[in-house]
């Protein structure tokens, strides 16, 4: 057994163990911590599978931001006692058995997949020079399948509106408040020390995404996490949701993407096509603005609905 194989088996067992532990613990906060650890371990597995872009996304979005959201939810649940009865033993058994069956079926099907797997990877690499990009994943996300990325960015807007719509009518136009506890020294210190580094990492992930692993969603997620940290520590206030500049920031990424895409009908040969020679600068422009919009949208998703009546 090689060392690499031993590491892989160890990682797999660890992921399974953490997953079981996350499900088994009674305390919500502990469970969320388990979930975050699980996501980070999963990111390591993606690294082992030579998929660094997926690893970055899993760490930033799956583990980091989702973890923050879950922590927020857990904090809010603490104040609300006995919302509903927990599901009965029979229901839990049925759910468990169903999940086990689906997992077993999936595992069987994955083993049945053809080997070598049919793949578009060679075609993706072959056409990459036309886009001027070095990272094939960015080629897929912003050239070949740009429509998916554009609409994924748009999906954040109804999702955010959905969160905002939970506000009380009188609070509309006010600001969200994201403070679970009285901020203590450690949190304040963290919120003062970490963001400068986090912001550099976020910008680096975005800027570097054209040629190295990274991109708008990962960069935006790191920036959003830094913003959420500052808000949680109470070092800054979230802006009121009715601010015009905030709305502009939210839609800027999708709007720039859409306008450049439409310009493709006239200046290139199709919607979402880039004129020859201008692909890379245009893609970088889209990624930069998109990072900003994604960061603002994700940060506001964590901040929650407006809870302060506008003055």
């Amino acid at each position: 057994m090689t060392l690499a194989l031993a590491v892989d088996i160890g990682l797999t067992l660890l992921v399974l163990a953490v997953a079981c532990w996350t499900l088994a613990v009674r305390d919500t906060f502990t469970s969320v911590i388990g979930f975050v650890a699980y996501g980070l371990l999963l990111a390591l597995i993606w690294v082992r599978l030579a998929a660094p872009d997926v690893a970055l996304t899993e760490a930033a979005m799956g583990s980091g931001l989702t973890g923050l959201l879950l922590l927020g939810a857990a904090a809010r649940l603490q104040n609300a006692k006995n919302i509903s009865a927990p599901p009965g033993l029979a229901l839990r058994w049925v759910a468990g058995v169903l999940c086990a069956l689906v997992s077993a079926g999936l595992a069987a099907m994955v083993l049945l997949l053809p080997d070598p797997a049919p793949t578009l990877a060679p075609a993706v690499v072959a056409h990459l020079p036309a886009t001027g990009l070095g990272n094939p994943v960015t080629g897929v996300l912003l050239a070949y399948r740009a429509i998916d990325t554009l609409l994924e960015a748009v999906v954040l807007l109804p999702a955010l509106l959905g969160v905002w719509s939970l506000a009380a009518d009188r609070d509309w136009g006010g600001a969200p408040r994201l403070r679970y506890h009285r901020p203590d020294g450690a949190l304040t210190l963290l919120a003062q020390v970490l963001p400068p580094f986090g912001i550099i990492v976020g910008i680096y992930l975005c800027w570097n995404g054209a040629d190295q692993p990274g991109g708008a969603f990962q960069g935006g997620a790191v920036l959003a996490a830094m913003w959420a940290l500052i808000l949680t520590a109470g070092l800054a206030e979230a802006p009121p949701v009715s601010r015009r500049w905030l709305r502009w920031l939210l839609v800027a990424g999708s709007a720039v993407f859409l306008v450049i895409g439409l310009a493709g009908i006239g200046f290139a040969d199709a919607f979402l096509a880039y004129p020859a020679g201008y692909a890379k600068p245009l893609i970088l422009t889209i990624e930069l603005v998109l990072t900003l919009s994604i960061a603002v949208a994700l940060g506001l998703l964590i901040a929650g609905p407006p809870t302060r009546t506008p003055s």
Partner: protein
Amino acid sequence: MMQDPSNLLVLALVLPVAGLLLALVVGGRYAGRIALWLMPVGLAIAVMLVVSVIRADDALVYDLGGWMPPLGVALRADGLSAIFILTTVAVIGATGIFARTEFRTLPGQPETRTSLTFWALLLALWGALNLVFLSNDLFSLFVALELLTFSAIPLVCLDGRAGTLAAGLRYLLFALFGSVLYLLGAVLLYGAYGTLDIGLLSGLVRPEPVAWGAAALMTVGLMAKTALFPLHFWLPPAHAGAPAAASAVLSALVIKASLFLIVRLWFDAMPALMNPTAAQVLATLGAAAILFGSVLALRQARLKLLIAYSTVAQIGYLFLIFPLIVRPESGSFAAADLYTELAATVVSTSAWSGGVLQAVSHAFAKAAMFMAAGLIAQSLGHDRIADLSSIGRALPITVLAFALAGMSLMGLPPSGGFAAKWLLLTATIETGQWWWALVILGGGLLTGGYLFRVLAPALFGSRQSVTLRAPVARYREVVVLALALCSVLLGFVRLGAFDLVQIGRLAKAGMGLP
């Protein structure tokens, strides 16, 4: 730009999305205006799309970014897409007019919560639906489903009451469960065949375990989003609790999007898997939905819940088309002569036309019914069926619209619902499957039963005068009547729609393969 009709596909997609971005930025009372101004433009695009598809007598295809599948993503509009895009803009446009004053910001007042969210979400919903009907790529379709889910759910709990929040949360759980299963299936298909393009998949998918697994996962996921029995639990509280304008769109259009994808999946992406057993299973669930939904509708005490259970039942009819298109006697077939067998099975055009007509006429009828119920509830302050006696005297236009829409649901001539059910009945006789004919007829009787419960006292109640709490705007009644008339008049256009449904069917193209 308009020389090439395939540009219409891009326009149909971009228009609502651009509207969403604009509405979010300018906000306030302009959000509603933007939505209302874009709707006639969208209608023009949809009409031009239908005309272009008929003129081309083939599907319109647009390779996004100039990249051909499998590397790129293609938009594709066949007759079916064109019909649904036109239906969507018609229903959304009517909803917009109906909701104009309900969700407005008064001049000089700050923006309100519902006035921004309703219009922005309506535009997002419209864009998502158009993408569902146009995209020819399984992953883009997943993005479309996400956009649809996240726009639809906040509409359910727009009034912010605890009950509707719970209904919205339940809807969210079912919808996300469906999304996950759909995505898993799409990933398996990519792993097995190396493409997500529906056109390419149709030639590649073979009846083998991985394809079956993917088909099962995706179908169950989409069934949860369509609220097909037995995954319908989320629908009645969600559709009954939403504001009337939102209920109309949710019941008329949103659940049809996932159903449309089930049809795309089985007939276009994986025609090799479509066999009589799978078709009978899907139709059995549909039949159970018709009977179960209708019986529960009979027992409801509130009008909006009755209409919501009626949706559960009417969705069932759409699943009856599967065995009518894939006949049982064609039996099990070997993979080698698959396509010749399939050519023999895909002959039942009356089943296709009946199914599409049922979907479209139900969309108009159900939108009219929910809006009528909304007007009744608004004017009386309640929607208890037991206390609707003689409401026809006070709100004649609304009750007339409700009755006309009900006529279409029951399948009385000359309505669109009648034509649809007649075509489906014809198909059951043609294919010798009398048991489905019994279900169609029984469902019609039950529908008559639960609508009679509402209409008989409303029209012939003994109360001499009904006092209304709030007046009802005449133009809103006219919108409801127009929708109801559409569902009735569809009974006369069926011959024209007959050919349009068949234009650009992928299964037909698949016949040419060895």
